[in-house]
C-alpha cells in the first residue's frame, strides 16, 4: 500500500506544475530557471526521478526540502509529535464527551436531555472547524484571557486546538454511541442481566457498552483520517507546529519532497491505525478471537 501511495503522490505532485518557477524570483531570466532545474534534477525523465525516489524512500531517505534545504525525514520527525499530540488529545476529548453523552441519550431516549444532546451533536457536526476555532479564540483567548491562542508548549496551549479538532468527530461519535446502545439495550442478554438484579451501571458498562463498542471502534478508526485532515485547518489557525501546516506550506511552494514524504508517513500511520482497530476487535469480541484460532 505504501508503494502504491508513493507512486500516486509522486504522479499527482508532478502533475501540479513546475516547482522551479516558484523557487526562482518572478522575473528570473530563462537561463537561471534552466540552471536551477538542472541543479535539482527536474530535467531528467519522470520515471528516473520516481525510481530514485522509491529506492531512497525504502532506505528511509525521503530527500531534501527544496525550500529549506533540510532533510525531509528530519522535518517530519520535528513536526510529527505535535500532530500526534493534537490528534490524540482531540480523540480523547471526543471519546470522553461523546460516549457518556450517547449513553445518557440512549438510556433517556426521547427525554429533553436526549434531544438537547442530539441537537448539539448535529450542530457540532455541521459547524465549520475554522469558525468554531475563531469563536473559541475570541471567547477563551481574548475576552476571558484564560487560554493562549497560538503555539505549542504547555497543556494550556493544547486545550483550544484539541477542543476545536474534536468537534469533527464528536457529533458523529455521540450519535453512533446512542444508536448502538439503543440496539444493544433491546437485546435479550441485557434484559437477562437486569432480571438477575445487576446494578444498572454494571449492566450499561459491562453488558451493553462492550457489545456496542465494535461499531464505535470501527468509526474511530475510519475517522482518524478525518482528524488528520482537520488538523491541517486547526494547525493553521492555532499556529500549531505540526505536519498539517508543514504539508500545506509545502504544497503552496511546490516542495515536492516534503509533500511526498508527509503523505507517505501519514498513509503509514493510517495503515497502523487500521491494524490497531483490527486488533481491538479481537480484544473486544471473544468470538473473533476463537474464529481466528
Amino acid at each position, binding site marked *: 500500500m505504501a508503494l502504491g501511495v508513493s507512486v500516486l503522490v509522486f504522479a499527482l505532485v508532478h502533475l501540479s506544475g513546475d516547482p522551479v518557477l516558484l*523557487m526562482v524570483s518572478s*522575473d528570473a531570466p530563462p537561463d*537561471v530557471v534552466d540552471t536551477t532545474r538542472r541543479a535539482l534534477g527536474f530535467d531528467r525523465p519522470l520515471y528516473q526521478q520516481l525510481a530514485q525516489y522509491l529506492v531512497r524512500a525504502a532506505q528511509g531517505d525521503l530527500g531534501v526540502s527544496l*525550500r529549506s534545504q533540510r532533510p525531509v525525514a528530519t*522535518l517530519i520527525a520535528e513536526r510529527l509529535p505535535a500532530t500526534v499530540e493534537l490528534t490524540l488529545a482531540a480523540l480523547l476529548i471526543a471519546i470522553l464527551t461523546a460516549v457518556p453523552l450517547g449513553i445518557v441519550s440512549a438510556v433517556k431516549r426521547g427525554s429533553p436531555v436526549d434531544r438537547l444532546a442530539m441537537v448539539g451533536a448535529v450542530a457540532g457536526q455541521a459547524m465549520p472547524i475554522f469558525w468554531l476555532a475563531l469563536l473559541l479564540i475570541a471567547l477563551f483567548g481574548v475576552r476571558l484571557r484564560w487560554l493562549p491562542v497560538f*503555539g505549542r508548549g504547555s497543556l494550556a496551549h493544547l486545550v483550544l486546538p484539541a477542543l476545536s479538532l474534536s468537534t469533527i468527530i464528536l457529533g458523529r461519535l455521540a450519535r453512533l454511541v446512542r444508536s448502538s446502545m439503543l440496539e444493544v439495550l433491546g437485546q435479550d442478554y441485557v434484559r437477562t442481566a437486569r432480571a438477575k438484579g445487576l446494578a444498572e451501571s454494571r449492566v450499561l458498562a459491562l453488558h451493553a457498552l462492550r457489545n456496542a463498542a465494535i461499531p464505535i471502534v470501527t468509526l474511530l478508526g475510519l475517522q482518524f483520517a478525518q482528524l488528520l485532515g482537520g488538523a491541517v485547518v486547526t494547525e493553521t489557525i*492555532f499556529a500549531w507546529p505540526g505536519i498539517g*501546516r508543514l504539508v500545506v506550506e509545502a504544497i503552496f511552494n511546490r516542495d515536492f519532497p516534503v509533500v511526498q514524504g508527509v503523505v507517505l508517513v501519514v498513509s503509514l500511520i493510517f495503515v497502523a491505525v487500521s491494524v490497531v482497530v483490527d486488533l481491538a476487535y479481537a480484544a473486544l469480541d471473544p468470538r473473533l478471537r476463537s474464529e481466528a484460532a
Partner: protein
Amino acid sequence: MQTRRDWLKQAGAAAAVALAPRAAEAQARKTTLTIALPSTPETIDPHQLRSVLSGSILGLMGEGLLTRDPQTMELKPLLAESWRNVNPTTWEVKLRRGIKFHNGEEFTAESVKFTIERAITSKLNTLAKLTWPPSFGQEVQAVDPHTVRITTRIPDPMVPSRLAAESLNIAPAKGLGDYREKFVTDRFIGTGPYRFVEHVVGDRVVVEANPAYWGPKPPSARIVWQVIPDAATRVAALQRGDIDVMLNLPVPLLSTVETDPGLRVYAELSSLTHGVLLNTRESPALKDRRVRQALNLAVDRQAIIKNLFAGRGQLLNTVTGRNVMNTFDPGPYPYDPGRAKALLAEAGYGHGFDLQLWQSIGRWTLAEEMAQVIAGYWDKVGVKTKIQLLEWAEYNKRSSGSQLRDAFYYAFINGTWDASYTVQRFKPDFATFRYFDASGDLLKVIRDYEQTFDPKRRRELAAQALKGLHEEAVWLFLWQLEQLTGMSKKVKGFRIRPDDFIWARDAYVEA
C-alpha cells in the same frame, strides 16, 4: 544603640538605592520583542533568501557593505567605510576595521571576496544573481586587508545600490569556507547586532543581542519571529499581549486594532507597484495607443482605493513607485469615461471589443474583487471584459513568459530602488514580461539611462523615460497600497522601510 536588625535594614536600604537605577533600567524594557509573521521564512542561509521577510530577519544578524536609511532610503556605509568609482568599470571600497564575526573571525577583504563569489559566481541558486546578474562579470580583488576593488565587464552605475541589497550579507570566509557551494541550515554567522539562537522551521526564528557588536548596543535582549499564519489569530495574540507586533494586518481587521486602547496601527506605503499590463505585441486593439489611454481613463482608481482598501493607498501614474530613486510622476489619467469612449471611437473601436483580463488566485489581497471592479469599468465604455483566473504558479509562469493576452494584473517590487529596475523591462531584448517594446527615442532614452553615471543626467533621463511610458499607456497604472502593521503602543523604534524591509534593529518594547 544600633541593633543587628537595624544594621541589616540600613544595609538593605543602601543596597536598594545602589541597585535601583540598574533595576529601573532593566525594568524599562521587556527582554523579548515578539514579531508575528504570516509565513515561514524560507531560510537562514545568508544568500539563499528569496523574500523581503527573510531578508529582514537575516538583516538583524548579517550586514552588507552598504545599507539604506530606514526613512529616506539614502545609501549609507555599514561594513564599508567609504566607496568610490575609480572608472566606469571599477569601484573601490574601504572597509571598517576591528569588526568581528559572531564566531570571532575578523572581517576583512577576504570576507567580501568570499561573499561575492559565493553569492554570485558559485553554482548556488541565490537572490544576488537576480539583483546583480553574473553577466556583469563581477570580480573582486583584495588590495589590502581593508580595501577591495570590484570590477565589472560592463559599466554598472548601480554597484553601490547592489552592495546595499540584503542579498549580499557579508559572510566569513573561514567560518563558512565549507559552504561555498552548499546552503547552511543550522547557523548564521554574521557581524550584525543580533546573534542566531534557533530556527524551528515553520515555527520561529530566535535571535539574541550580540554583546560584542561594533555599533550601538542592540536595544532588545531577544527578538522572536513567530509564524502565525492566520490573521485573526495574530490579532487575538496581539490583543492578549502574547506578541508585540503583527505583520500583514488585513483591512477587515483594522478596526479591531484601532479600537483597542493598548494597540495602534502603523501604516507605511509599500513599494509594490500594482498595474494591469497590456499586451501590445499580440492583441490587435491594444497595439493602438489611444485604446490603451482609453482603458486608463475609464477606471476610477480613486474610488477603488477608497472602497476596496479603506483609502489606504496612493495612485500610481507610471511604472515606478512614488518613493524610489529617480522616480517621476507624470500626473494621472483622470477618470473620464466620456473621453475614453471618444478615444475608442477615434481608434475605430466605437462599438467596443472583447478583452480578456487575467488575475491570479491567492497572491494579492482582494485580487478577484479588483479584477471584477476593473472589468466593470471597462464594460461601461464598451470593452467587453472577460475575467480569467489562474493559480499563482501557473499565472506567474505565463505572465513572466510573456504569454498572457490581453491584459493581466501584476505587482512589481523594485530590487535596486532605482527607476531603472522597471524601466529596463521595456527594452525589446529584456528576457521576461515582454508586452510592450519601446522603440525610437523612448528606447534610446532607456538605454542611455541604464549606462549613465552622472546623477543629474540620470534623473533627467529617468523622467523622460517614465513620461514616455506614461504617454504610451503601457499599463493600466493602478496604485501602491499601504502596508499595515498592528502593534502594542509600547513598541518603539520599529519601522518598515519604504522598500518593505522590516527595520527591527532599533526596536524594543517598553515594560
